[in-house]
C-alpha cells in the first residue's frame, strides 16, 4: 500500500478537510540536482558549459573593465593600454554620439525636451500615479509642439509676417472657438469637434511660427542618439494611430472606397523594403512638389517610417480585432453605443490588449530600423559610430564603438519589452483573485 494513503481513512466520508499541498524538498542543492545534474549526460553538458564560461567570462571582463583605458585623446593613448577596451574614445566623442552636430551652446534645448518628456511620460506610462489624465492631455496636445519648437526653433510661415494677416488669423481663431462653444451648448458633437479642432490647429500654426522665440537649428544638424530617438519616438507615436485607422478601414465593408484604399496602402507598403520606401521618400516625393519647394530629409524619412510601420501595425491590430467575438459588438449595440463608441470603449481596448506583444515587437523593430536612415544621408547613432571609427585619429576602435551603440539599442529595446510585459500583467482581467 502507498504510504501516502495511510491517513486516507482518518476522516469520515464527506468531511475531508482541505489540506496544504505536499512539500517537496527545497533549497539550492535540490535545484542544482533537478536542473543541472539530473542525468549523466546533463551533468556532462553542465561541466562543458561551465568550462566555456570559464574561457569566455574572465577575458571579457578584463577587456571591458580590468585593463580598459578610460581617458584618451586619440587612438595612440589607447595603444598604450594593456589590450583592454578604450572607453576614452566614447568619452572624447560623447557629445557627437549623443547629439550629432547640434550646436554646442544650444544643447540645453534637446536636454529640456527630453526632461519634459520624462516628466510627462512617466506618469502616463505608469497609470498608478494620480493625475494621469491631465499629464496625458498635456503630452498629446501640447508637448509635441513645444518639443518641436525647442529642437528646431521657429518654423516661419510667410503669411504670418504680415500684421494684417495675423489680425485676420486671430479673428478666425476667436470665431472658431465661438463656433465650438455653440456646438457644446447645443450638444452638437460635429460642430464642437470642428470648432475646437480647427481653432487648436490654427493656434498650433501660430505657436510654431513663433517657436518660443529661439534661434533656428536646421535638422541637418540632428544626429546621434538625438536623431535616433526623434525618429523612433515620432514614428512609434504616429504610426500606431495610423495603423489602427488602417485596420478599422480594412474591415469597413460598408464603405468599399475606404476599405480598398486601406487594403491598397497596407499591401503596397508591406511588400516593399523599408530602404526602397526611404529612397522613394527622399528622391521621388520632391519631384511631385512645385519647383523650389524642398522638404526636410528628416521629415521625409519620418513620413516613410510612419507609413511603412503603420501598414505593419495595421495587420497586427487587425489580428486583435478578429479575435473579438461578434457578441461584444452586438452587446455594445444593444445598449445603444454607436459604431465609434463601441470601437473606442469595447472593441479596441480588448483588441489592443491582446496584441500588445505584437505591437511592442513592431516598436522594437522600428527603433532598430531607424538606423537605415543612414542610407539617405542622415547621421543617426549608428552612422555617427561608423564615421567615428573611420576617423584617422580613432582608427581600430570598432569593438568599442559598436559595443556602445549595441548597448544603447539594447537598453531602449529591452525596456520596451519589459514595459510591455508589465502592462500585459496589469491589464489582465481574467485572473481570479
Amino acid at each position, binding site marked *: 500500500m502507498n504510504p501516502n494513503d495511510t491517513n486516507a481513512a482518518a476522516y469520515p466520508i464527506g468531511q475531508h478537510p482541505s489540506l496544504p499541498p505536499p512539500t517537496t524538498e527545497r533549497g539550492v542543492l535540490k535545484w542544482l540536482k533537478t536542473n543541472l545534474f539530473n542525468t549523466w549526460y546533463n551533468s556532462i553538458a553542465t561541466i562543458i558549459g561551465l568550462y566555456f564560461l570559464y574561457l569566455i567570462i574572465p577575458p571579457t571582463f578584463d577587456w571591458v573593465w580590468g585593463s580598459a583605458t578610460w581617458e584618451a585623446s586619440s587612438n595612440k593613448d589607447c595603444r598604450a593600454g594593456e589590450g583592454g577596451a578604450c572607453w576614452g574614445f566614447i568619452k572624447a566623442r560623447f557629445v557627437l554620439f549623443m547629439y550629432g552636430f547640434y550646436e554646442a551652446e544650444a544643447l540645453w534645448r534637446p536636454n529640456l525636451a527630453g526632461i519634459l518628456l520624462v516628466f510627462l511620460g512617466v506618469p502616463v506610462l505608469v497609470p498608478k500615479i494620480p493625475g494621469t489624465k491631465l499629464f496625458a492631455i498635456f503630452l498629446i496636445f501640447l508637448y509635441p509642439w513645444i518639443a518641436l519648437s525647442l529642437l528646431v526653433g521657429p518654423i516661419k510661415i510667410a503669411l504670418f509676417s504680415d500684421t494684417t494677416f495675423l489680425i485676420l488669423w486671430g479673428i478666425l481663431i476667436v470665431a472658431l472657438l465661438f463656433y465650438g462653444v455653440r456646438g457644446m451648448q447645443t450638444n452638437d458633437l460635429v460642430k464642437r469637434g470642428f470648432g475646437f479642432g480647427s481653432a487648436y490647429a490654427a493656434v498650433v500654426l501660430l505657436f510654431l511660427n513663433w517657436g518660443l522665440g529661439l534661434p533656428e537649428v536646421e535638422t541637418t544638424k540632428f544626429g546621434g542618439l538625438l536623431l535616433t530617438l526623434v525618429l523612433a519616438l515620432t514614428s512609434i507615436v504616429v504610426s500606431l494611430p495610423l495603423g489602427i485607422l488602417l485596420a478599422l478601414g480594412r474591415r469597413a465593408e460598408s464603405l468599399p472606397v475606404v476599405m480598398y484604399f486601406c487594403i491598397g496602402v497596407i499591401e503596397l507598403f508591406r511588400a516593399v523594403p523599408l530602404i526602397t520606401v526611404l529612397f522613394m521618400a527622399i528622391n521621388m516625393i520632391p519631384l511631385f512638389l512645385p519647383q523650389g519647394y524642398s522638404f526636410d530629409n528628416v521629415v521625409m524619412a519620418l513620413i516613410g517610417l510612419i507609413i511603412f510601420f503603420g501598414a505593419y501595425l495595421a495587420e497586427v491590430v487587425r489580428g486583435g480585432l478578429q479575435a473579438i467575438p461578434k457578441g461584444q459588438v452586438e*452587446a455594445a449595440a444593444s445598449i445603444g*453605443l454607436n459604431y465609434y463608441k463601441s470601437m473606442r470603449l469595447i472593441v479596441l481596448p480588448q483588441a489592443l490588449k491582446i496584441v500588445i506583444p505584437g505591437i511592442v515587437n513592431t516598436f522594437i523593430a522600428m527603433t532598430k530600423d531607424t538606423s537605415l536612415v543612414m542610407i539617405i544621408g542622415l547621421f543617426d547613432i549608428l552612422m555617427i559610430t561608423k564615421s567615428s571609427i573611420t576617423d584617422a585619429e580613432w582608427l581600430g576602435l570598432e569593438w568599442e564603438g559598436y559595443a556602445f551603440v549595441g548597448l544603447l539599442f539594447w537598453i531602449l529595446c529591452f525596456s520596451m519589452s519589459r514595459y510591455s510585459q508589465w502592462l500585459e500583467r496589469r491589464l489582465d482581467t481574467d485572473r481570479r483573485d
Partner: protein
Amino acid sequence: MSEVSVNTEQIKSAIQDREIIQIRGMHKWFGDFHVLKNINLTVKSQERIVICGPSGSGKSTLIRCINRLEEHQKGEIIVDDIELTNDLKKIDLIRQEVGMVFQSFNLFPHLTVLENCTLGPIWVRQTPKLEAEEAAMLYLERVKIPEQATKYPGQLSGGQQQRVAIARSLCMNPKIMLFDEPTSALDPEMIKEVLDVMVELADTGMTMLVVSHEMGFAKTVADRVIFMDEGEIIEQNDPHQFFDNPQHDRTKLFLSQILAH
C-alpha cells in the same frame, strides 16, 4: 378622489393597450436562404411573450430584427412608434429603448461589473458618473449580486454573469427587454437564479420577449406563447391553451419532443 383613481386606471389601460411593437408582413433572407417568412406580430406594452420552436426555426433572428442586429428585407417593423429603416440615428434611438440579453452573456470582460452597468448610461444617456453608479447598484441589488460590483466578469459564475447582463440592460431603463435563450448556457442549479430574476422583472410590468424552452417559466409569466418553425409563426396562444391543447401538428410534435426529456 375617485376621479383621480379612474384617471390612473385609464392611463394604465391606455399604456397596456399601446402597441409597442408592430411587425407587418416582414421577410428576411440570409443570402438566398429565406429565414423569416411573412411575420405578423403585434406586442402590447407590458405584454410578456415566450417564443419557442425547433433549432434553426428563426427565433433568434426574429428578436434580433427588433433591435436591428439583423436587417429585414421586406415588410415593416415599428418599435415604440419609430419605424426601423437604414437611418442610423433612429436605430441608435431604438436600441436605447430595447434591452437585450444573450445566450452567451456577452459581458465586457475588460470592465468591472459596475463599469459594465454604467457604460451605457454614461456614454449614451450622458448620465453623470456618480448618479449612474448609484442607479447601477440598485439594479445589481435587484438581481441580487451587489457584492460582485468590483469584480471582473471572468471571476463570476455563469448564472451571476447572466444576472449582470440583465442588470446592464436594465440600467438603460429600456421599455422592452429581449431575451435570447438566457438560460440555455447555464447549469441546472443556475437556471433558477436567472429565471427568478426574470419573473421579478415581469412583475414590474416590463414588456418582454423571451426565446426560451423553459415551460415552467412560460406558464407562470407569459401572456402569450408563440411557436415558430421554418421561419414562420405556426401558432400562438395563451400558455395553458398552448401547452395543454396545441392546435397544429408541428406544435404537437415539438411539444412531445421537449416533454420527452
